[in-house]
């Protein structure tokens, strides 16, 4: 493990995560389908998870990996709630495009 990190360098992990994170961000910004937006958020979270693991190895410290479990659990809970909301929106509206959600404004 340590070896690989030495070969590749922590910066590259960071760059990868940042790129992944940005992909997630752009997904959230540009996609209009709620499910895909959820997935983009998941990409963001997973990018961070990746970085956590990398840092964990970098610091030779297990805390980072434990934190990943935390974040995964939280993400799961979040998505569960999100999907539930989505379902009720679909029931009321018959669509899951977030552009339809413009009743509240001004």
């Amino acid at each position: 493990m340590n070896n690989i990190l030495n070969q590749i360098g922590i910066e590259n992990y960071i760059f990868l995560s940042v790129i992944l994170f940005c992909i997630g961000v752009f997904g959230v910004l540009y996609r209009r389908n709620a499910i895909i937006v959820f997935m983009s958020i998941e990409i963001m979270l997973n990018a961070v998870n990746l970085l956590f693991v990398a840092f964990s190895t970098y610091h030779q410290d297990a805390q980072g990996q434990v934190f990943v479990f935390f974040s995964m659990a939280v993400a799961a809970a979040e998505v569960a709630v999100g999907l539930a909301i989505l379902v009720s929106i679909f029931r009321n509206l018959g669509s899951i495009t977030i552009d339809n959600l413009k009743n509240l404004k001004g």
Partner: protein
Amino acid sequence: MNTLIAIIGLGVLCLLFEILDFRKAIIPITIIGLLGVLGLTISEYNAPNSYYNNMIVVNKFSVCFSSLFIVLTIFLVALSHNFYENHQSKLSDFIAIKIFLLCGAVAMVSFGNLAMFFLGIEVLSISLYILAASNRMNLKSNEAGMKYFLMGSFASGIILFGICMIYGAMGTFDIAEISEMSQSAELPIWFPIGIVLVTIGMFFKVAAVPFHFWAPDVYEGSPALTTATMSTLAKVVAMATLYKLLSAMNADINYGFQMVIVVISIASMTVGNIMALKQANVKRMLAFSGVSHAGFMLMTLLSITTSAGSLLYYATAYSLAGIAAFSVILYVCKNQNNEDITNFHGLGKTNPLLAAVLTGALLSMAGIPIFAGFFAKLVLFSQTIQAGYLVVVIAAVINSIISVGYYFKLILAMYGKEPNETRTGKPFLIYAVAIVALVLNVIIGLFPSVILDLLA
């Protein structure tokens, strides 16, 4: 620590009551339970301690804010009785969620480890997502929930990324260690980046400009009691957490960062107040007012080493006024489809007491003396001037003037117009909450030392 466990126990108890069919006892028992927890919390005031490898740190700061949160939750629970009259079967769920929300809140001000901070913030947020969307059949509520959820989890992602950067820089999640290490000369650039990202995530939670756009929409769409929760409890929690985060990690608030805070603070006040002027929906108006108050509270970050007391005072004043105002709004808009200002016409004639309470609450928010809001602003101004930011204070003063414009719109509606409907019933709990909240507000207004000296 005991607080946290007791609160969770209370939440579980709530859910059990439903199973055991003790529905009627839920609210009284919860209130009594929360009062007990309050006592328990206060007893720890003079006994700072840390638990579970510093996961939880109990100190004066956490005790004070936790107590405030518990008090606010008591009010919110008391208001639930009337609000959920027609949803008796779900009462326990709502109450339990509120209590879990409190859990998250307490965790957020007593964390000793970033993991605890993250957990707390997520528990709080998820509970709020649920509450926001809790009126399933109402599209507005759905929309509010969805907006809040999407933006909230986006912000959570940012916070998580920030935490990750901090971890990358320091190799630990423990606040005390981070604080110690941050004193050293050579810090990886990741650390400030992480701090900034976390701060931005928290700016979102307190709804500071330009991260505030969710607030009015979500406040408007959510059921009124949820709006009350968000605008009082959630806002105060987020602000306290941000404060604690920045002060506990001994983060280097350099000149550039202070400028950012100055700009965001002024922008929040200004945008919030100006936008509030033209609102016809009271909840929306209070949302923007909340944005501006966030701007005020952000001023405490400019003198972070000394301003804990004033933040506590401001938060208490603001949230008590908010509770009082929302209890009146709950009463007035009970059977209405909307919260338009027209609903308040003639309240001064039909319900003079409630009208007086709402007036008092609004005056407090506007910062008129003898109400706590005045002292809150005074202390804030004095600290900020001392920190050398006269500009911010001038901006804040101008904003206070603008804010009077919309607060008085509501007062005018209550006293200047004829009532267009009869209002019946005097729900005891709503009256009680409204009056107690306002009286507490006035008391701490008359004796500010009671609160200010707690964190001196």
